[in-house]
């Protein structure tokens, strides 16, 4: 095991054996080639691998050597009839172009590109890619929610306080207004204006009579209520009688007056 092998994650496993580094002579067992290629993210990644593996200087790439090694891979891939990604072929063309430009004598330089190294663009791309490759590893190393730490979320029992629809006096008023408008427009019936307190008292009286027993007429009045309320109660009882909701009985003149609901009568 060499030192470099220790630092490398296995590229692939061939017949169960971990493949830690690519062989020096670039020979790759045919059944491993696909796996090996899968480990490279593309031509830039492959080039970086070759450069770093052979301790080449990114800033002074020996183009001939790098191109030769790169082409070795391409040939291997093609001889195995692997579907070669177009990017790999494009990169091969770029490498050959750079190599050929470097072979040209300097004086024959046509356009004034300020003496720029033909490798400059490749260098920039390699460094930029390497920077992002490194950044990706750093990002992945950061503790990540759910993978490396958990988020606190305490349960709230929302069912404890189920929110019921709320109704305001204003709602009721608006709805009633709407009903009155509709009634007015349709004119099928009229809604009488009534003293609400009489209606309220009618309900009150009906509640007092709810159990169906005869109730003393006087007991429906509360002296503490004051005269207006007593009058309203009286009108309410008369109204109930008029609507056949209650029955008022007096068995003898000046005798006790009893009131009971018609429901009680009907139940008999």
């Amino acid at each position, binding site marked *: 095991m060499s030192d470099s092998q220790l630092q490398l994650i296995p590229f692939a496993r061939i017949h169960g054996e971990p493949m830690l580094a690519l062989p020096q002579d670039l020979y790759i067992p045919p059944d491993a080639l696909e796996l090996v290629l899968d480990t490279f993210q593309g031509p830039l990644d492959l080039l970086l691998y070759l450069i770093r593996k052979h301790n080449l200087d990114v800033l002074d790439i020996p183009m001939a050597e790098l191109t030769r090694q790169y082409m070795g891979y391409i040939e291997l891939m093609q001889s195995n009839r692997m579907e070669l990604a177009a990017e790999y072929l494009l990169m091969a063309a770029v490498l050959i172009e750079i190599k050929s430009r470097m072979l040209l004598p300097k004086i024959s330089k046509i356009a004034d590109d300020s003496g720029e190294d033909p490798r400059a663009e490749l260098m920039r791309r390699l460094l930029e890619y390497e920077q992002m490759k490194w950044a990706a590893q750093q990002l992945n190393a950061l503790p990540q929610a759910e993978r490396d730490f958990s988020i606190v*979320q*305490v349960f709230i029992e929302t069912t404890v306080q189920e929110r*019921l629809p709320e109704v305001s*006096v204003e709602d009721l008023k608006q709805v009633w*207004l709407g009903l009155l408008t509709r009634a007015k427009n349709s004119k099928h019936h009229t*809604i009488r204006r009534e003293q*609400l*307190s009489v*209606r309220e008292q009618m309900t009150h009286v009906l*509640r007092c009579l709810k159990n169906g027993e005869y109730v003393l007429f006087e007991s429906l009045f509360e002296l503490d209520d004051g005269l207006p309320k007593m009058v309203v109660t009286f009108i309410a009882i008369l109204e109930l009688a008029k609507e056949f909701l209650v029955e008022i009985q007096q068995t003898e003149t000046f005798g006790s007056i009893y009131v009971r609901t018609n429901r009680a009568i009907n139940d008999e």
Partner: protein
Amino acid sequence: MSAPIAPSTTSDANSFEHTELAVAEPIAASAAASPIRTDLFDGKMNTDELKMVLETALLTASEPLPLGELKKLSEVSLDNRQLEVLLNELASSWAGRGVELCCVASGWRFRARPHMQVYLDRLNPQKPPRYSRAVLETLAIIAYHQPVTRGDIEEIRGVTVSAQILKTLEARGWIDIVGTRDVPGKPELFASTKQLLDDLNLRSLNELPALQDISALLEPEAAAS
């Protein structure tokens, strides 16, 4: 590996916070040093440390955790009783806070105390649900025109009133049956309840906007339409 969980020796309730801090410190420190720490305590996790782990697990769990699950958190094997002692101690340490640890059917879980709901609602001001127009109109007719039968309501609204609407209002405690009208079929008479007045913050039905006022409002509007 088999160090028994000793009951907490500090009996002074006031020193609780301090005890916990002192115990917790080495964990945090060593955690930074090594990412893999299952063997850190070498089976010697003490009661306070275990309680901290239990607390953390319960705070992050999305479901109640049964005792069987919680046992997995301990390096020493605990029986249900021992675990429950710890959980009850943990629950007590949350007394008086906005969140409590409780035991429900499927296990233990933290939950917000119900009285905190009113504050939490400020963060999510969900619109309270509203009743349909049919329900509101029925309620208005019963409130203003009581006692009324279903037939009366239908006559005023001009459409049939489903039993469901009346049931909704009865379930809410806002209307009830106060009698029957003595006509064929003996229809039930509906009236509004004290509960409705309470919920509307009224002392009596008289405090509902008076019909006269409404008709005053109504005339120009009806004329306009």
